[in-house]
């Protein structure tokens, strides 16, 4: 495994040969070292690992040996060279020689140049080469970065060339040779030449990749922590969109790469940790009628363990992962043990969460109806969430739902007082140890969170251990086990759940003091106190105290890899890994809980096990100027998911939260099984170091598809051309690459059992009066001839670097067409079923991605870096199946009168529903009461997909201090805000203020005139204009309450908002203690950071809610309903390394 580590640091060239002796016979004269290496290789089979740069300052050698041991030959070769070597199995790794004086070919002490070489952060660089131009004189820097170079000459023009692997080269004329000469070397943009991890864990030079590749370092995710590290990717990778539900603790995260490619079903990428796919399905999500976000499998990803996250967006990148990679792959590589002694990392992070108070409701009119105060307590109960009373008046007393009379004034402390300050504490320790042969790493992270919603919080422990060992020359082993234990208390209910506190709070009239609601149960009977006559809007204090829910999760994830080198050019690897999770959820509803008066206990037990076993052959050989690499592999994936849902109804003893305490217990079991067998192969060809071609092919056999259709093959081809290698070195273009790819990927049916009709008894009602209830057990029409869906993806792009990597540009254009999609398509209920399994359609995604890296200021003390990414995805539903309607409903909400649909010829995810009824000139057609009407034909009201997304990360560093902030943009999508709709309907929205006083005066006039509503023309109120049924112009006044209740009840068009936003996603200020300060302590590194997560929303267009609010992670985004406010976090992070 050491080899890999070296590869990571250097752009490696490998010389292969096929002689297999330990002794060497050689005769060369003035031959370059490289030639000798080739000969040695040929005779011994040992490979040399080095960079070309390293050989730059070597001299040619002459050797005449016969049957001499390898070591002896090498000794001769390296004599007098600035190099040394280490033999590691069959590799000879060439390194710069650490000390300097012995290496001078000419030594004269009359003049000595000296100085310090550092990186751009001022940290000393050891092993940098300082060479006097035009001579063979050079020195290599010491551990503290210093060098001394005796040059022996004065008077002539002295030019020093300083270089180091991985860093740039600097040239400087030395004017006053006696002064200290300090050089600051720039780190070469790693992205361009680095070695990266690609599909199947194969490391590749980034330059050879024919597709866009993005990488995020683990350290970028650990300082400003999200409870789910995947959320930290938002704004960092072009074309990667993160959506979270606003559930708060332990919620799931939806990631979309390059747009939604499948109409229904799962659009999320596959997560692979160290080669082993994890199950990222969610145990449960809120739907139209409410529920909880029960999280997903990605919580096993511990940011403290992550070395890198590779984002494989396109088809070619992911083709080798097969069926499940159609939506891309998020490849996580975790850290390994140390090769040199023990290293301890410790991170401590304390963050405080506050709600981002975006409530902007009216505070002038309180509980009441039709401008009247409640007449008695009974009416006060009905009016607690109706802010249609008269204007506040400190002299008035009003009935309150709790039976008292209180001054009719603004309570001033309403909604936001419900929330508390949340705390998140994260402590993590990583211990790495080992030597050249064996390495071990242990990581433990503890997370403790109290959410802003009282009673709600999360506790999580992540532990992992990884060991790697080179057992013999040919045999190595790598094994890891990671464990997660998580407990989440009181996940907030979402959507239309009666105990969704976000929804209930946003309707409370402004004169209702939240403290009054704290008395939520009868002190004697313990029964719920009715406060609003609405069992679908439970008192939030009852919700958090008497309806507790808890979930626990244990997840175990591990693998073992054995590698055997059959030949120097051929190795075989066997890997087996399992992801296992056990999830338990329980939700208790005490006796007298509204909607479940007799109490209820809901239990869910879910265990998921997925095992992947793989055999992989790796071949690699250099033939003249060609490099030939090949892999062939086979994998078996076995999946089993068991879910047991149990419901207890009718509680016996109030307050006792056990299933044994319920009189009716119903259980429902689901067992899902699935297997995919695969074979695959890849061929990687490279010509010199600038032209690359990759070919891959894979065949899958899936158990979820119909016999005869369950075998499917798909290929990919990609190519990369580094054209900058062919043009002369110049100051403008430092690097240039063109790339292109085509890939086909196939997908099976995600769910099993979709081929045949099944029958069963009713899972909720076994019998009634002794009669059994049963029938067809499924709501989807199965499809006996189900075949795989196929995606074709094209991608072209370029990477360009200018002005010594001061400007880096990555451009990508892509197009993906997904055909024969396996859809669980919504069909007319009149068919007897709600959905049908079909192969359907053609959905197209095309777009561009731009990543731009800028370094406007580079100096020895102050640096400024900007990283910008931009992505624009356009999708279009080209065709749906003729068997189903041309509309595909993605989400529909009974309370919304609107749907999110995919429609032929349109973009994915348009919002459709009732619009205002208008004439051809656009005038509102008003009814006999001058109120607006809806158009019974649904219209397109908006689009839930964003036009473009982007992020800007700015980083400023001055000496040991760095400051960075990340901006996240999304532009052009729409959201249907039910929170605002309800606020209009119940008089809480500021927009309802218009016309209220006017209507009151008009009504006074009417009463004075003794007229009835029907024969009175309002003199003031909410002005409205339009035309009547006969087309005549109407300008009139209406009652704002009637108007808004009419619009809220029927016309969603009024509540479609622009969901665009600009957010400051994170800010951090880091201070690293200077090396000099910690020199005499055991500390190797110490960084203190001040961090802020989601501190500001710089721009948004929807009032009262965060435009990112969504209640589940389904594909039907665009509905918002009773959202909790966004949390903003501030805190401190301490990082120590020993």
């Amino acid at each position, binding site marked *: 495994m050491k080899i890999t580590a070296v590869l990571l640091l250097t752009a490696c060239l490998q010389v292969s040969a096929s002689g297999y002796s330990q002794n060497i016979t050689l005769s060369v004269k003035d031959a370059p070292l490289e030639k000798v290496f080739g000969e040695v290789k040929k005779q011994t089979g040992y490979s040399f690992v080095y960079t070309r740069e390293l050989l730059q300052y070597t001299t040619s050698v002459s050797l005449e040996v016969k049957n001499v041991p390898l070591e002896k030959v090498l000794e001769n070769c390296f004599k007098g060279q600035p190099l040394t070597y280490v033999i590691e199995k069959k590799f000879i790794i060439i390194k710069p020689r650490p000390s300097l004086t012995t290496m001078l070919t000419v030594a004269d002490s009359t003049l000595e140049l000296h100085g310090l070489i550092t990186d751009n952060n001022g940290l000393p660089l050891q092993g940098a080469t300082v060479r006097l131009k035009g001579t063979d004189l050079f020195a290599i820097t010491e551990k503290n970065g210093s060098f001394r170079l005796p040059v022996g000459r004065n008077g002539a023009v002295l030019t020093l060339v300083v270089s180091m692997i991985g860093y740039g080269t600097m040239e400087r004329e030395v004017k006053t040779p006696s002064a200290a000469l300090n050089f600051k070397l720039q780190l070469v943009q790693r992205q361009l030449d680095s070695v990266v991890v690609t599909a199947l864990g194969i490391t590749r030079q980034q330059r050879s990749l024919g597709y866009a590749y993005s990488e995020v370092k683990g350290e970028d995710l650990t300082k400003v922590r999200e409870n789910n590290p995947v959320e930290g990717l938002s704004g960092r990778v072009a074309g990667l969109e993160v959506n979270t539900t606003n559930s708060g603790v332990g919620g799931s995260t939806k990631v979309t790469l390059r747009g939604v490619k499948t109409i229904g079903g799962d659009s999320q990428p596959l997560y692979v940790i160290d080669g082993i796919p994890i199950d990222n399905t969610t145990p449960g999500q809120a739907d139209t009628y409410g529920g909880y976000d029960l999280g997903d499998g990605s919580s096993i990803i511990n940011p403290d363990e992550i070395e890198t996250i590779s984002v494989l967006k396109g088809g070619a990148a992911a083709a080798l992962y097969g069926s499940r990679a159609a939506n891309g792959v998020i490849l996580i590589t975790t850290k390994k043990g140390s090769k040199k002694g023990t290293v301890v990392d410790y991170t401590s992070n304390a963050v405080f969460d506050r709600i981002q108070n975006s409530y902007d409701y009216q505070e002038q009119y309180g509980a009441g109806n039709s401008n009247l105060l409640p007449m008695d307590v009974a009416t006060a109960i009905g009016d607690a969430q109706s802010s249609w009373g008269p204007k506040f008046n400190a002299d008035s007393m009003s009935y309150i739902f709790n039976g008292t009379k209180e001054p009719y004034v603004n309570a001033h402390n309403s909604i936001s007082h419900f929330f508390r300050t949340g705390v998140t504490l994260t402590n993590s320790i990583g211990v790495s140890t080992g030597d050249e042969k064996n390495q071990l790493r242990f990581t433990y992270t503890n997370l403790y969170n109290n959410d802003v919603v009282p009673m709600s919080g999360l506790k999580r422990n992540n532990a992992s251990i990884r060991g790697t060992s080179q057992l013999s020359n040919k045999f190595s082993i790598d094994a890891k086990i990671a464990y997660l234990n998580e407990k989440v208390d009181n996940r907030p209910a979402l959507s239309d759940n009666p105990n969704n506190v976000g929804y209930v709070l946003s309707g409370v009239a402004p004169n209702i003091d939240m403290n009054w609601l704290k008395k939520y149960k009868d002190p004697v009977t313990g029964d719920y106190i009715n406060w609003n006559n609405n069992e679908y809007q439970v008192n939030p204090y009852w919700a958090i105290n008497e309806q507790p829910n808890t979930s626990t999760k244990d997840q175990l994830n591990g693998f073992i890899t054995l590698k055997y080198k059959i030949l120097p050019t051929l190795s075989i690897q066997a890997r087996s890994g399992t992801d296992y999770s056990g999830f338990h959820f329980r939700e208790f509803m005490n006796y007298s809980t509204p909607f479940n008066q007799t109490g209820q206990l809901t239990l869910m037990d879910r265990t998921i096990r997925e095992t992947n076993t793989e055999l992989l052959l790796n071949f690699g050989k250099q033939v003249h100027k060609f490099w030939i690499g090949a892999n062939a592999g086979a994998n078996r994936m076995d999946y089993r998911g068991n879910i047991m849902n149990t419901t207890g109804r009718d509680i016996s003893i109030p307050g006792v939260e056990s299933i044994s305490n319920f009189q009716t217990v119903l259980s429902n079991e689901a067992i899902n099984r699935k297997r995919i067998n695969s074979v695959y192969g890849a061929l990687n060809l490279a010509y010199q170091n600038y032209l690359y071609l990759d070919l891959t092919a894979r065949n899958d056999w899936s158990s979820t598809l119909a016999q005869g259709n369950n075998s499917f093959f798909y290929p990919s081809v990609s190519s990369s051309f580094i054209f900058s290698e062919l043009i002369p070195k110049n100051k403008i273009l430092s690097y240039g690459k063109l790339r292109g790819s085509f890939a086909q990927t196939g997908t099976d049916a995600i769910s099993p059992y979709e081929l045949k009709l099944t029958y069963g008894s009713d899972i909720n009602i076994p019998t009634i009066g002794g009669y*059994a*209830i049963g029938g*067809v057990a499924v709501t989807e029409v199965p499809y006996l001839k189900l075949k795989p869906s196929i995606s074709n993806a094209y991608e072209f792009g370029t990477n360009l670097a200018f002005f010594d990597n001061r400007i880096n540009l990555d451009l990508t254009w892509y197009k993906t067409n997904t055909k024969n999609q396996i859809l669980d398509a919504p069909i007319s209920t009149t068919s007897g079923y709600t959905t049908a399994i079909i192969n359907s359609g053609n959905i197209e995604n095309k777009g561009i991605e731009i990543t731009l890296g800028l370094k406007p200021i580079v100096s020895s003390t102050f640096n400024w870096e900007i990283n910008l990414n931009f992505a624009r995805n356009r999708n279009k539903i080209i065709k749906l199946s003729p068997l189903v309607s041309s509309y595909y409903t993605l989400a529909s909400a009974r309370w919304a009168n609107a749907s999110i649909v995919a429609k032929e010829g349109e973009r994915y995810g348009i919002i459709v529903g009732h619009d205002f009824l208008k004439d051809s000139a656009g005038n509102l057609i008003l009814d006999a009461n001058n109120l607006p009407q809806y158009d*019974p034909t*649904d219209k397109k009201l908006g689009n839930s997909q964003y036009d473009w997304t982007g992020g800007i990360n700015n980083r400023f560093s001055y000496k040991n201090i760095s400051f960075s902030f990340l901006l996240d943009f999304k532009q052009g999508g729409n959201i249907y805000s039910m929170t605002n709709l309800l606020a209009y309907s119940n008089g809480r929205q500021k927009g309802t203020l218009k016309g209220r006083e006017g209507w009151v005066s008009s009504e006074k006039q009417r009463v004075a005139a003794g007229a009835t509503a029907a024969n009175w023309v309002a003199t003031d109120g909410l002005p409205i204009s339009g035309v009547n049924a006969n087309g005549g112009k109407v300008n009139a006044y209406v009652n704002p309450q009637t108007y808004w209740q009419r619009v809220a009840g029927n016309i969603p068009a009024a509540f479609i908002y622009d969901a665009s936003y600009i957010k400051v996603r994170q800010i951090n200020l880091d201070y690293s203690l200077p090396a000099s300060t910690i020199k005499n302590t055991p500390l190797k590194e110490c960084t203190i950071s001040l961090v802020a997560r989601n501190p500001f929303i710089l721009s948004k267009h929807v009032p009262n809610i965060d435009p990112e609010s969504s209640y589940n992670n389904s594909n039907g985004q665009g509905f918002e309903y009773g959202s909790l406010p966004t949390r903003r976090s501030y805190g401190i992070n301490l990082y120590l390394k020993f």
Partner: protein
Amino acid sequence: MIQVQKRVLPIVLLVMIVLASSCTKNFDSLNTDPTKGSSIAPGQQLTGAAYYLDGGRAVVYANFYVLQPFVQYMSGPWGMRAGSKYIRTTYPDAVWTTFYGQSIKQLVDLIQRNKADSSLVNYIAAARILKVYIFSLLTDLYGDIPYSQAGLGYYESIYTARYDSQQSIYTDFFSELDGAVKQFDATKDAIDNDIVYNGNIDRWKKLANSLRLRLAMRLTKVDLTTAAMQARAAIAGGLMESADDNFKMIHEAYAYPDLRGNGYAQALQESDTYLYSAGTTTFINYLKQNSDPRLPCYFVNQDANGKDITSLTNYIAISPGLYWWDNWGDFIAADGTDIPQANKFATINRSFMALQSSFLHMGYAEVQLLLAEAAYRGWASNAGQYYQNGVSAAIDQLSMYPGMVAISASDKANYLAAHPLDAGKEIQEINEQKWVALFPNGYEAYANYRRTGYPVLGAITDVGLESETNGVLPRRLFYPASEAYDNATNYNAALQNLGGTDNWLKPVWWDK
């Protein structure tokens, strides 16, 4: 070594491919759901279909919040604005989705799967009758609906069913009912697990004929010839003969709002809706004017403690279209008792809130009243007797509600004596009595109103000017919005018969 390489590589590759591809053999069993079966007993499926008719509150909302306020039985709660002020809501949609998605689905599957098995003809015949009943509720509410292609998602891959004209649906109804009655065969397997008639095929036949009479009578406005012919055939076939033949669903006193408890009772209990479900002036005044002994069975006035204060209020009714809080003010009784607004109106009798109460889909009382009308129209004889039988049976059938105040034999006799069928007012009296007898079945009361114009409904009072029809009673319901998406082509074709857009003021075919 090169030899090794050449030999090993193809072998390993071959082994990989063989390993991967050979194991598709057990895919079939792997892809079979171990928790489900590949078939089910037809009786379970028949009961499964029947059970969704009135269990659970969602499917009842259409009747509760829309249809019964339409015919002015009750009004008052916020939700009833849908039916008392004519405001479009999604309440009725559950009828569509549940009837098609549960009941029709199971019945079509039962018939398709077992039609070739001659031993199961009794199940098939019962399923056909139930299917006609359910479709009749749907077509009477909506007009043209998917019928001939409905429920065939699996058997014929029809995912978007065509809408059939109501006229063609009615034609098929009569032929189906006729065919089903003829199909029953006592020598074949009895219907097991039959929640409707416990396997009694004679009762199924009587239901089929009674239903045929109801549907025949539906056509009196549009096609008197067919009406007469079908009514005569129905009568000849044999109708319900007593309350024992009633088509009703039994329920259990099960608090959780699932199918076990009567959905109507569940809707009343929800958020204390019953407290505000007040009898309208149209209904209560009719009962009062006729000194109907059923008034205290239907309604009651209670104070905040549940004490009966009817003697003080004498059943204060709510005007159609009003919310319970409209027309604000306490009621001061003759003895000076102040009855607060919240307790002012006569609300529904608590017997209707019993979760274990049955829901009557079609009963002997209605059949006798249908016969009375048939006799008046000359298709039978002795209208007056049938009328009296019907009223008498209607009074008797109230005993099916648990805890219902019993009506004494003398009160019943007095009422019957005072209410003979009056010459010249036959249609009005028969159908007003049917309206009273059907309470709280809004489906049939609304259909019967549209056909006969009885009872004469009061104009609604729309205090907040909220009515979306300006106070005009709708003649049908809007199709569920989901059809515009999930069945776009057929839905749009169906709208052509309504003038291009969905419109609830347009009458259905038999209401023209």
